[in-house]
Each structure stands twice: as structure tokens, then as C-alpha cells.
């Protein structure tokens, strides 16, 4: 091994501690700010905790910010959860089936379907935002969960991942299943779905975070405050015309808004890293 000794090792830890500090500092300050009442923050935010932590979290969860419409944050978080689950599960459902059709069937037009789907690879919703919004508006999707979810669930990436994975399934397995008497549906349910379980779980983690963290699309497709998602709703609290933002409460919302994805990332770290690295490669 190329080992590091004494000073070198100490330096390595110093660099990593510095990195960790950069990452954690904004979160720490946000948490501290949440623990104070509004007037304490003016001038400069203190660097140690106050007494109001629970109270501020409770306030935003149940009442929201009065200046920004007063929608309780738990409503927004509920919307975020529905959107994130809808996007993650929707993407997985339509991708796994599409990939199955492309890999395990031969029919005319298969190549065309393949091209049609994969041409959308890497094309984020942001670039075609205006016409997509018009489509959603024509479909009466404004202020609906369908509007939050459906336009975002077409995913060449997930289809591609499943396709790659399916192609590593030995073809004898399909042959054996056919001789055992399984048709395409049974093969899908009994063999392909169980074999993709780990990949699906990893993908789900990544897609859940992707869904939860959507911003521009919810911004466009929701007008009613009761349909706001938490990630998108926070900008209304920061940019209140003619009012001083209530930073202690805003930071509480920010922390709540990142909590679910954070729990997922840290709680399912292995799965998450795997999902991330494999979806992109």
C-alpha cells in the first residue's frame, strides 16, 4: 500500500474537515436561526441556539407564513410528497414496461419507438418550458396533481437503465421460462421484475429526490397556494414585496423542505450512491 504517515494523514483529515464544514455551515446557521425569535436575527444572526426551535417549526407546519398566504407547510409538504412519489413511481412504471417491450419483443416499429424515446435523453423540461406549459394549460392541468406529475415522468434515462439491465439477463433464462410454459406476462412478473428489484429500489431513491426537488414546473403549473410544493413555495416567503422576510420561519421551511430527501440520502446511502452512479453511466 501507498500509505500516508503522520503529517500527511493529519493534512488529509484537515482538508476533509474543512470540506465538511463548508457543507454543514449553512445548515447549522439555518438551524440556529430557526431556534430564535424574529427580532434576535436583526443585525446579525447569533451563532448559538435559542429557545424557539420547536415553536418555530410548529408555527410553519401548522400556520405557515402569514405574509406569504399563510398556507401551512405540512400542506406543501404533502403536495411535495405526492408529486415526488408520483414522479418516481410513474417514471419507473412507464420505463420498466417500455424497456421490457423493447428488449424482449421483436415487432415492426420497435426501432422507431426506441429512437423516439431515446432522442429525449438529457433534454430537461426547462428548455421547452413555454410550449409544454401551453399543453398543460390546454389539458386543464393547472393546479392539479396530474399537471405536477405527468409532464415530468417521461424518462429516457430510466428506460435506458432498464434496457441495459435487461440485456444482461441471459437469454437462456427466457428460453427456460418459455419451455417451463411462461408467456411474456408471466416472464415479466415472475422473472424480470424480481431480478430488477435492487435496480428499481436504487432508481426510486434517485427519482424521489429528483421529484421532490422540482422547482420551475410547479412554479408554472400551480396558481392556488394550496397546491404549492414546499421547494417552490419558499420563494414566495423570501420575496415578499414591501415586507421584511421572517428569516427564522423561512429557515425552518428550508430545513423542512430538505428533510425528506436528506433522510432518504443518508438512510439509504448505499442504494442512493448506486442508483446515482448507475443511472448516469
Amino acid at each position, binding site marked *: 500500500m501507498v500509505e500516508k504517515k503522520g503529517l500527511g494523514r493529519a493534512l488529509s483529515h484537515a482538508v476533509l474537515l474543512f470540506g465538511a464544514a463548508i457543507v454543514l455551515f449553512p445548515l447549522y446557521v439555518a438551524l440556529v436561526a430557526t431556534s430564535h425569535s424574529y427580532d434576535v436575527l436583526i443585525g446579525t444572526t447569533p451563532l448559538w441556539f435559542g429557545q424557539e426551535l420547536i415553536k418555530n417549526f410548529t408555527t410553519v407546519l401548522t400556520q405557515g407564513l402569514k405574509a406569504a398566504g399563510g398556507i401551512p407547510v405540512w400542506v406543501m409538504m404533502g403536495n411535495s410528497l405526492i408529486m415526488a412519489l408520483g414522479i418516481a413511481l410513474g417514471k419507473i412504471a412507464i420505463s420498466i414496461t417500455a424497456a421490457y417491450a423493447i428488449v424482449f419483443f421483436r415487432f415492426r416499429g420497435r426501432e422507431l419507438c426506441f429512437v423516439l424515446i431515446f432522442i429525449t435523453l438529457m433534454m430537461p423540461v426547462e428548455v421547452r418550458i413555454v410550449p409544454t406549459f401551453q399543453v398543460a394549460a390546454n389539458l386543464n392541468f393547472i393546479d392539479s396533481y396530474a399537471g405536477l406529475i405527468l409532464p415530468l415522468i417521461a424518462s429516457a434515462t430510466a428506460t435506458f437503465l432498464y434496457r441495459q439491465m435487461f440485456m444482461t439477463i441471459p437469454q*437462456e433464462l427466457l428460453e*427456460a421460462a*418459455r*419451455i417451463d*410454459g411462461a408467456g411474456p406476462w*408471466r416472464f415479466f412478473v*415472475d422473472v424480470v421484475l424480481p*431480478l430488477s428489484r435492487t435496480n428499481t429500489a436504487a432508481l426510486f431513491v434517485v427519482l424521489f429526490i429528483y421529484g421532490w426537488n422540482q422547482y420551475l414546473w410547479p412554479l408554472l403549473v400551480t396558481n392556488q397556494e394550496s397546491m404549492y410544493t414546499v421547494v417552490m413555495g419558499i420563494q414566495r416567503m423570501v420575496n415578499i414585496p414591501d415586507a421584511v422576510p421572517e428569516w427564522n420561519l423561512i429557515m425552518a421551511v428550508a430545513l423542512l423542505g430538505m428533510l425528506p430527501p436528506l433522510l432518504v440520502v443518508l438512510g439509504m446511502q448505499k442504494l442512493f450512491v448506486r442508483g446515482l452512479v448507475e443511472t448516469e453511466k
Partner: protein
Amino acid sequence: MANVRLINIDKTFNKNKVLSGLNLEVPDGSFMVMVGPSGCGKSTALRCIAGLEEVTSGTIMIGDKDVTHMEPKDRNIAMVFQNYALYPHMNVYDNITYGLKVRGIPADERKRRALEAAKLLGLDGLLERMPRQLSGGQRQRVAMGRAIVREPSVFLFDEPLSNLDANLRNQMRIELRRLHQRLATTSIYVTHDQVEAMTLAEKILVLRAGHIEQYGTPDDVYLRPASVFVAQFMGSPSMNIVRAKAEGGNIFLPDGTKLSGVQAADINISGRSGDILLGLRSEDLIFDPEGDIHVTVDIVEALGSDTLAYCRPLSANPEKQESSSVIVRLQGSQRPASGDVIRLTARKGHGHVFDTETQLRCL
């Protein structure tokens, strides 16, 4: 139980004729081995019987059912694959019984059959294991168990032993024979290994480039090969084939040596004269100080039980040895040195004569 008949089977892949005009019958309860070099069409033939490939033309009969256009599952066959094709996410029990489950066979019946098969194959303690926890030999057995529980009328084997190491292969070969003796189910077995073919088969089908070269018992194929190809493919080392001349009931080597051991009369070509191809197996050339064939020893391989000597005729140009080299099987104790000149006799009655043009056996 059923016999299998192929009638005028043709199979074409992208204009490549892989099988042409295949006609054969596998008798009920027999063990038939299809053998041939890679690309000869043996796997394709098996897959056509299984229904994994559609034949281009012709008819496949299993028993008295025409199965040519049936799905694999309706043909009442079971297949064992080269890489076992076990479902990696199912344990041994589920692997074995999956085919029964799909067919709607009740759970207690599935269990009965699975336990019976497990006992037969020595898988008793392994039913809860996952495939990845099994050794190669055990996986092979599970694959067979999966075929057995189905109680099909035909077993199909696609090179099932080729992923095993040599020892295990020998052992599994014997188990396969025992199994066949017990179950007596019609079996069709594909291999490129002629030892497997000889030891397992009741009937051997030698395929070459999509057509039948010979179809017969192992003895037929070994003792009376129908062509130079079969003669050289079956048996190790390969049969020696030399150019010779038949004249007046005698056989002469190109250098004029008259063979005393092999007489035309012994091998039924008395009436024939002119150029022929003479086939002599390595064990049919005997070390004999009085022998009429003189050869120079090139390379000696001592195998323990016997010794293989790669020789060339004295008259041959040593630079071009490969064209006319002859392999001789000597007793293990006989160890000529490279460069020695030795004398050989062809064993009486053991020559094979082939036509120089058609390469077919002369009767």
C-alpha cells in the same frame, strides 16, 4: 413417452442454410446424441425440436403429434441448458417447480414430484438454497431436476456438461446414464465432445454443415465410419488417413510398400483397384520388428497407460512432415526416441477404405 421424428427439416438464418433436408427418427425411450464440430447445426436442430426456433420447412413429430408450429410449452419437452439457466432469484425448490406452477399443477403434487426428483438427484438438503450458493455440479443437478419433475415425453440437453471441470464431467456423465436407465425417457443430447457421445449414446447422429453424415449406434460410428469426416471426428487421436492403391487384392502405400496386415479381402474391396484412402486408427498400427511399414519417429507423447508416437514415412520430406504424419498408439512401456526408425504392421482386418473422390466408405 414418445419417439421424435424429423421430416425434411430445413432451417435458414439470413439466407444461410443451417440445416438442410434433415430426416431422422429417434426411437421411443432411446438416448440420442447429436455431435459435430461447432457450427454444424446441432444446437439449431435441438432448438427447432424444442420450439425455440421455427423451422423454415419440414415437419417435426413428437409421438403422433405434429408439433412443427407449436409453442415450446405445448410440446411436452423439457430442456437442460449449457449454463443451466436457473432463475437466480428463486431457490432450488422454486426453480424446480416453476414449470409445474405455471401449468397449474396443485401445490401438493408439485411438492411430491420435487421431493422425488431431489431424492433422485441427491438435492435433498439443498432445496432452500439459492442458485448462487450452489457449486457447478449442484446447479447442473437442479437444472436436471427442473426437467425431470415435468415428466415430459422428451428430454433435450444442450451441451449440459461443458461448463464443468473434467472430473465432475465424468461423474455427471455416469449419473446421466443411470438416470436414463431409470427413467427411460427419450433423450436428445447435443455435444461437441466425442467421448460424451460414445459413452452416453444409444444412437449417435454426426452432423456436418447442416446435413447428416452418419446416424447409427456408437459401434457403427466408431467401427464403420461412413466417411472420412466421421472417421476423423470420432476417436482420439484422429484416425490416420493415407493415400494408397488397391491392386489385385493387395493394398500398396504410395512408396510401393505392400501391406501384409490389411488385405483387400478382409475389408470387402476385393473387386476394387486404383487409388483409395486408407484409414488406420492409431491403435491398429502395431509395433513390429518384422513390420513392412518403415517410419521415422518425430515426437513422442507418453500418456502413462500408452504412448503416442507421431511418425512420418521414411520417404517423406522432413520439411513437410505434417501432410503425411501418422499417429501410432504404443504400449505405455514402449518409448521410442525422436529420430528413431521403427517398423509397424497394420492390424489384420482393421483398415477402413474410403473413396478418394466422395470421401465415403467403400463397402
